[in-house]
């Protein structure tokens, strides 16, 4: 579980995060949603320790990140996996090299043990024939799956995903969503996804945190988001005609 308490972050004159307090539950897919510029990426970077907040605390299983020594912070980071928006695969390494990288850096496993683990996670993300291909030689969806494989290869306790569906076709986006949810439940990890994708919100949003102008405007589940009367949330979530119709049908059904 990740607990966030009164988080503040500013860049020069811009007060980006304004006292965010929330929790991200273990074994669930937690989504952070909000408009561009609402502070989602800064929030995730604070959670990852890439940006230091001015005020507030972030606790991982009760351990406050800012109070840990640099070595303890590094150890904690090794329990985190991250799937970046652009995948952030190492261009100079093959798919296998990318996935094996954390094992090579932080474990004393033999080559064959590492190979077995890499084969296992690549199979888990349904990539069996891409071991020796380079990131530039595979599709965006495959790159995302390699990024997921790399993120889970060390058995992380926490999985962070920054817009995992961006740039993907709807079918592949659903596959990636389902894969992340399956992995979250299978390994009982705390997953935090920063997304714009409303399909993800509806499909896998077991807990949703809605940010608006750096403030936590609303939080709840994907079922509760249908019922909310919060104008900022409904304006954001139901900005497309399709979702407006879905909501209308839901309200009519309820009445």
């Amino acid at each position, binding site marked *: 579980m990740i607990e966030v308490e009164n988080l503040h972050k500013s860049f020069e004159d811009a007060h980006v995060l304004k006292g965010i307090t929330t929790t991200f539950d273990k074994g669930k897919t937690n989504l952070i949603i909000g408009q561009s510029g609402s502070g989602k990426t800064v929030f995730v970077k604070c959670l*990852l*320790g*890439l940006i230091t907040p001015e005020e507030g605390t972030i606790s991982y299983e009760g351990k406050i990140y800012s109070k840990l020594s640099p070595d303890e912070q*590094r*150890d904690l*980071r*090794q329990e*985190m996996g*991250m799937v*970046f*928006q*652009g995948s*952030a*695969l*190492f*261009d100079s390494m093959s798919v296998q090299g990318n996935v094996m*990288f*954390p094992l090579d*850096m*932080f474990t004393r496993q033999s080559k064959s043990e590492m190979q077995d683990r890499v084969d296992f996670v690549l199979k888990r993300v349904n990539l069996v024939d891409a071991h020796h291909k380079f990131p530039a030689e595979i599709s965006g969806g495959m790159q995302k799956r390699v990024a997921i494989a790399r993120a889970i290869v060390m058995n992380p306790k926490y999985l*962070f995903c920054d817009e995992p569906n961006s740039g993907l076709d709807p079918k592949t986006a659903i596959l990636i969503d389902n894969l992340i949810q399956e992995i979250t439940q299978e390994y009982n990890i705390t997953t935090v996804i920063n997304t714009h994708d409303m399909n993800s919100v509806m499909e896998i949003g077991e807990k949703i945190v809605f940010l608006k102008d750096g403030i936590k405007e609303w939080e709840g589940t994907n079922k509760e988001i249908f019922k909310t009367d919060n104008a900022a949330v409904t304006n954001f979530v139901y900005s497309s005609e399709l979702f407006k119709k879905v909501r209308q049908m839901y309200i009519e059904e309820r009445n």
Partner: protein
Amino acid sequence: MKSLILKEIDELIYGSMGIIIFISFFIGGVVAIQTALNLTNPLIPKNLIGFATRQSVILEFAPTFTSIIMAGKVGSYITSSIGTMRVTEQIDALEIMGVNSLNYLVFPKIIAMLLYPFVVAIAMYVGIFGGWTAAILGGHTSSADFVEGLQLDFIPFHVTYSLIKSLVFAMVIATIPSYHGYYMKGGALEVGKASTTSFVWTSVVIIILNGILTQLLLG
């Protein structure tokens, strides 16, 4: 880390040998031809061509000129490769994994560049060989005169001086472009700008250090 260092040696040192050999050969040749064409006084011995070629190549062309070339070739490679990793969040990925990204990316380059004096030594040999080839093929002097000039008043410390300079320049070539790549902000366009800026600053620092080191070591 060992494999990373070997990879960087391959990229930065071995990968630069072709251009360095090519340029050194012709620089040495041009120095020899220019010297020969300016020797109009019959009282000046022909062995001066070999002497001038040796001095020019060992003291300046091999260490300094080669370093400017390397600032362009290797420096821009370092800035653009690290800068691209910054832009595409690969450095963030390293940090999140718990890897000290600065150490991981820059240290192997610094170690690889410790071999740079060997490149300069090869540039010296090839430059002088280029001078000899041009002088002989151009009919400017005989091989015996050229070799005699090469041996004339030879001060071994000049080679040491040149190699010391090259080692200092190697550190400049490894660190300044790394700094510009690692701390760059923005997108793909900024990667290009950072490469240009790093080349300019690397060249400026090399030229300034060349003056300081020459005064310190030979003054």
